[in-house]
């Protein structure tokens, strides 16, 4: 019987404490992450890594990336030169795995044969807190056997294994079903040129960063961003996925998008989940503004009328876009033009807007 604890907001520190104790004993912990459920083990503990590879049936020589808690830990594990640093600053923290020359601080079995190591500095507070408090890098491999699909829910998954396998898992932290997102995009920075090893949901190639020092500036950035996409709306909808903490300025951004097509009365749709606006614009006929703040369960996304809204000449803005992980495939089927916008606090007035779109 595997020990399982359920995650709820109120006792997250207790969950972390339990996981820490298990990791210190060299145990393997099934833990939610930014992509799927992950298998966490101390990347500096040979026994722990062995247990992990036994569970995964991982062929020898296939590297495993690690979670780090911050830039400091990242630099302790891998070598970063100035040009790599510039690239990293654009990508991290984010849904990427970055491969860099290892400083040989971790168990060699998880490094590549050429001595490089995949590191992940993600935006997922629970993992960040756990790694920080543990003080050592933790393995960041998904909770599946080698060659099978990643796991987005844990209850059925665990019970499926033979007891011998189950015995290798020290603890399962159950956070319920996770949004279905593709694995991280893996980027190799060890060569002359940046190389994408595995394509996840995000693509760094066309990303741009803007700084905004006022709501007015955020709106202006939004307006500028929208324009070039409007012409492409004749073949499919234009969809902005806007993420960021509470109060970062997601609604302000949506207001800018609205103003770009002549809608000047956009307000927060949090309470009603979505607002539609008829648009008088040569290229756009409708603006639909969603707020997924209250949506927790991906089943429910089907009933919001999203599919019906994904039509040519429609402009859509989603707040808390990352919760729409499941929607990505829906967007693609409707030939949507996707633009990701992440708004981060820099200080009280300044915001960093990271904009990327799939090519």
């Amino acid at each position, binding site marked *: 019987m595997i020990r399982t604890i359920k995650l709820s907001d109120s006792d997250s520190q207790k969950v972390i404490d339990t996981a820490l104790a298990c990791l210190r004993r060299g145990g393997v912990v099934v833990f939610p992450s930014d992509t799927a459920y992950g298998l966490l083990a101390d990347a500096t503990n040979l026994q722990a890594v062995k247990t992990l590879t036994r569970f995964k049936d991982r062929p020898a020589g296939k590297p495993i990336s690690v979670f780090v808690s911050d830039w400091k830990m990242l630099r302790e594990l891998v070598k970063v030169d100035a040009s790599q640093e510039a690239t990293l600053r654009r990508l991290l923290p984010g849904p990427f795995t970055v491969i860099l020359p290892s400083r040989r601080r971790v168990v060699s079995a998880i490094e590549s044969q050429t001595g490089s190591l995949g590191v992940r500095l993600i935006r997922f507070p629970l993992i960040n807190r756990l790694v920080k408090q543990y003080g050592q890098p933790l393995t960041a491999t998904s909770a599946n056997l080698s060659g099978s699909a990643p796991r987005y829910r844990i209850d059925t998954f665990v019970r499926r294994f033979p007891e011998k396998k189950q015995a290798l898992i020290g603890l399962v932290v159950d956070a319920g079903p996770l949004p279905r997102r593709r694995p991280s995009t893996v980027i190799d920075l060890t060569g002359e040129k940046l190389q994408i090893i595995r394509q996840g949901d995000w693509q760094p190639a066309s990303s741009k960063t803007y700084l905004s020092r006022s709501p007015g500036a955020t709106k202006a950035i939004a307006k500028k961003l929208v324009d070039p996409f409007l012409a492409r709306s004749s073949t499919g909808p234009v969809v902005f996925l806007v993420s960021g903490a509470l109060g970062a300025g997601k609604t302000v951004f949506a207001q800018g998008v609205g103003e770009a097509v002549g809608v000047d009365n956009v307000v927060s749709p*949090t309470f*009603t989940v979505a607002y539609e606006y008829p648009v008088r614009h040569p290229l756009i006929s409708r603006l639909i503004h969603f707020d997924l703040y209250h949506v927790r369960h991906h089943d429910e996304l089907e009933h919001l009328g999203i599919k019906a809204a994904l039509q040519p000449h429609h402009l859509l803005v989603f707040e808390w876009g990352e919760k729409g992980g499941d929607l990505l495939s829906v967007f693609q089927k409707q030939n949507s033009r996707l633009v990701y916008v992440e708004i981060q606090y820099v200080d009280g007035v300044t915001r960093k807007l990271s904009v990327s779109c799939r090519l």
Partner: protein
Amino acid sequence: MKILAIDTSADETASAVVEGRRILSNVLYSQIELHRPWGGIYPALAKRAHEQRIDAVVKKALDRGVGAGRSMTKQMGEIGAVAVTQGPGLAVALEVGIKTAKTLAQTYAKPVIAVNHLAGHLYSCFAQNRNGKPDFPLRFPYLGLIVSGGHTELVVMRDELKYEVVGQTRDDAAGEALDKAAKLMGLGYPGGPVIERLADSVGHQDQYRFPRPMLNARDLSFSFSGLKTAFYYFVKEMPASEKNRRLPHLLSSFQEAVFTVLIKKTQLALRRTKLTRLAVGGGVIANRHLRRYFRQLARQEGVELYFPYKSLTGDNAAMIGIAAGCLARHSRFVTDPAALDRVPRLAL
């Protein structure tokens, strides 16, 4: 004329029978219990729940409003018109109410009245019980304030049909701001009542003096997103133990910031419009402390003040019926009910 009213604009499935301003029945199938585990309106559940419950809720409204133990046909025989909320609200939820209203109207050959949900909140202030109490007459014009989870609007009500929005929120509604502050502190949904309790417990002190957004702006617009940001920043770096210890004071101060803006803007609107009657509706006015503030304001400005009964502060269908009664008096029926469609961002 008795009106059967339906409201499914957000998370309440509601139906009522009213005659004039008299409420003969008012049935809510509150979905709050259903929503709480997810911390907010849960849209698909809301739609499904509306669909599952609407018929039963309407039947109950008729049973209580025109008498139980009779066939639906007999009950509908006493009804003069069917009123329904057209917007603003969640499109998929509004659709359920509109579809039901259309079907009823067609089956029993009744006219349809399309009502703006916000007008409903204003008319909730003028509701009477079954016996017609309180029996004050309507004396337009009024200054109306709607303050709820989805809306913060100042409205001049010239007469039964003519409204003019003189101020509204540029971003978040007041109730939404309170909900989000509660959520930031790890409290459940709805956040308003919890904040009220905690603020009561510390005597509504304002230790932290959060910013009062738009207070110095000369217009009547509201904005609460800046306050939300300030609050987020203030508690972000705070250790959990300290956050818990300071919880009542933090939320009391937050509530004071929101309420001060509501009161000051209303005061400005009263002075600008020179109106002498004030009606405040919407879920946030359930807060007793805010009611005290408005009473103070009314005394200070020498105006008459109207609130809804606490049971009519949240979304309900009785208020839709009362607003519909005014439209009916002016024969404002929907000319082509089959073509009636929801308008999610319907303005007053």
